């Protein structure tokens, strides 16, 4: 038992250590590339799940990612601002928008699928803004934009060596997971769990619903934008379809659902699966067939929602609960309640 506990605690560290030495075992740049993509999307999906796991489903995180990407790229291309500062600026811009939208939504009780729809609209607005600014800010519109290359310039967040991106994005993912743990241990987790289940009961216990939800939304948006910066500095190219918008937003949500948004490693597993699936179809069938992988994962989503409505985690935790089989003690006189939840 003790060993199992230690093993459970040690696993994340072990995985991390393995990932740290991975690049020394294989040196294929292609594999490095895949790993970096997995890290970035795992990071973004994990950060999205900060909210998602408490039932605050945002379909607009593509917007925050896009804000990170374009703020960084434009500040650098037009004003020569270092992407390190651009990263901060993008994060703050995303957080500001999240606070404005989140506060007004939560204050007026826009929750559940109405909130999802509101964020979906935000995703579309940001995409259109980027396209509309094709000339004024040289975003390149639908054709996309390329970041001015400086070769390797640490001060300007540009590295030709993929290894650096490997460790940087791994660190980002580690940070996201660490913050997840911190949230788990904090009272924020308790508050949001209660809010996610019964907002009125939570309010009656003194939980400031609007504050907690808005804060979590802002943190999630801020961190998503940081992921956008890492992505653009790595790929050096951005266009509205891959870097922002509804499609990307749905992609993030789906990765979380597939892996399970309620568990620490769920988002990472989901992202790894999808990235590998996409890369596999690209390699096996050629890049014209990437859409086949998307069809598969769209179908996967429908099947998952249909057959495991509680999400993967819900299903597994139910199994776990049955295993526990604790004696149900009814300590009060009288009968068992006739299932008060039905």
């Amino acid at each position, binding site marked *: 038992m003790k060993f199992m506990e230690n093993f459970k605690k040690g696993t994340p560290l072990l995985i991390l250590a393995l990932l740290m030495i991975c690049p020394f075992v294989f040196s294929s740049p292609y594999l490095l590339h895949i790993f970096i993509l997995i890290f970035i999307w795992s990071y973004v999906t994990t950060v999205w799940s900060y909210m998602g796991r408490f*039932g605050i*489903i945002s*379909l607009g995180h593509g917007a925050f990612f896009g804000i990170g990407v374009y703020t960084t790229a434009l500040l650098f291309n037009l004003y020569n601002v270092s992407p390190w500062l651009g990263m901060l600026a993008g994060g703050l811009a995303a957080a500001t928008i999240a606070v404005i*939208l989140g506060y*007004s*939504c939560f204050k*007026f009780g*826009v929750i*559940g*699928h*109405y909130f*999802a*729809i*509101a964020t*979906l*609209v*935000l995703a*579309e*607005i940001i995409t*259109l*803004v980027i*396209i*509309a600014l094709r000339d004024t800010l040289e975003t390149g519109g639908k054709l996309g934009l390329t970041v001015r290359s400086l070769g390797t310039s640490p001060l300007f967040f540009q590295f030709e060596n993929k290894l650096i991106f490997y460790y940087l994005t791994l660190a980002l993912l580690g940070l996201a997971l660490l913050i997840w743990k911190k949230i788990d241990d904090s009272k924020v987790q308790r508050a949001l769990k209660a809010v996610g289940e019964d907002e009125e009961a939570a309010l009656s216990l003194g939980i400031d619903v609007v504050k907690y939800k808005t804060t979590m939304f802002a943190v999630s948006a801020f961190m998503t934008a940081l992921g956008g910066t890492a992505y653009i500095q790595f790929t050096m190219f951005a266009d509205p*379809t891959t870097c922002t918008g*509804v*499609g990307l937003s*749905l992609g993030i*949500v*789906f990765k979380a*659902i597939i892996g399970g948004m309620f568990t620490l490693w769920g988002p990472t597993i989901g992202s790894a699966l999808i990235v590998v699936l996409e890369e596999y179809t690209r390699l096996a069938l050629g890049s*014209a*067939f990437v*859409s*086949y992988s*998307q*069809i598969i*994962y*769209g*179908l*996967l*989503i*429908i099947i998952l*929602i*249909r057959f495991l*409505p509680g999400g993967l985690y819900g299903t597994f935790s139910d199994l776990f609960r049955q295993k526990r089989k604790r004696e149900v003690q009814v300590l009060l006189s009288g009968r068992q309640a006739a299932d008060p939840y039905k």
Partner: protein
Amino acid sequence: MLILNAVINGLLFGGVLALMAFGMNLMFGVVQIVHLAYGQFIMVGLYLVYLLTVLYHVPLLLSCVLAIIAIALLSVLCYYSVVKPLLKAPPINQLLALAGLWIVLENACLAFFGATYKGVQVVLPVLHVGEIYIAASNLIGFGVGLITLGLLYLFLNKTYTGVAIRAVAQDTEVSGVMGINSRTIYLITFVVGGALAGVTAACFVPVYAVHPHFGSAFTLLAFIIVILGGMGNLIGGFIGAFIIGVVTSIGSTLLNPEIGQIIALLICLLIIILRPQGLLGVRART
């Protein structure tokens, strides 16, 4: 003059938009789901017309009719495979499953037709009265839209099935007590909604060359209109369609197409937050 032109063309275009929004609205009102993949149905319809006319040389009108039937069938398939199993699930699950369908349809079209614009060459004249220029395509869309909506009005008010649909939209439980099988009504609603998507696609044939990403644009457009008029409020949606038609038309004439859409979306966002029952809606009882 420019503005007057924009207003008139916007109003005419509003006829098609009303048709498009009506389908989504009907499904929300009756089945209580937000049909996120509705625009994708229209897109598939456009591709079908392209496939039939250009590749198989079927006459245009016949291929439009075939496309309408095909989309209605696709809608039935969607009902049985995605919607029906989730009728009792939380709304957010329904929304996400339909988003899954969105991804499937969009990428299926991308896989089969590629990422280039595909269109049927229909040459229609531009009519002009004095200094006002009216695209015939808009006029046709307007006509077809109004005629279809008129027929729908008769269907919903004069036939037994139509009245039953309205009864279910009002109150599923009570109508169940009165002996209406809501599942059958849901199925009929999906047939009608699918056919409407098909008709909308037919109206769009002379206007758009289609691209896989159009589906999401259609979905969002229908969505904005439905929210503007109040979800499930059919009359509200009808008026909302003309408002959006004019706003986007003026926006794109004076500024550029994106600005028009951004304004429409911002209005939509404000309505979600401040008046979730829609501009014309009455606040719900709860």
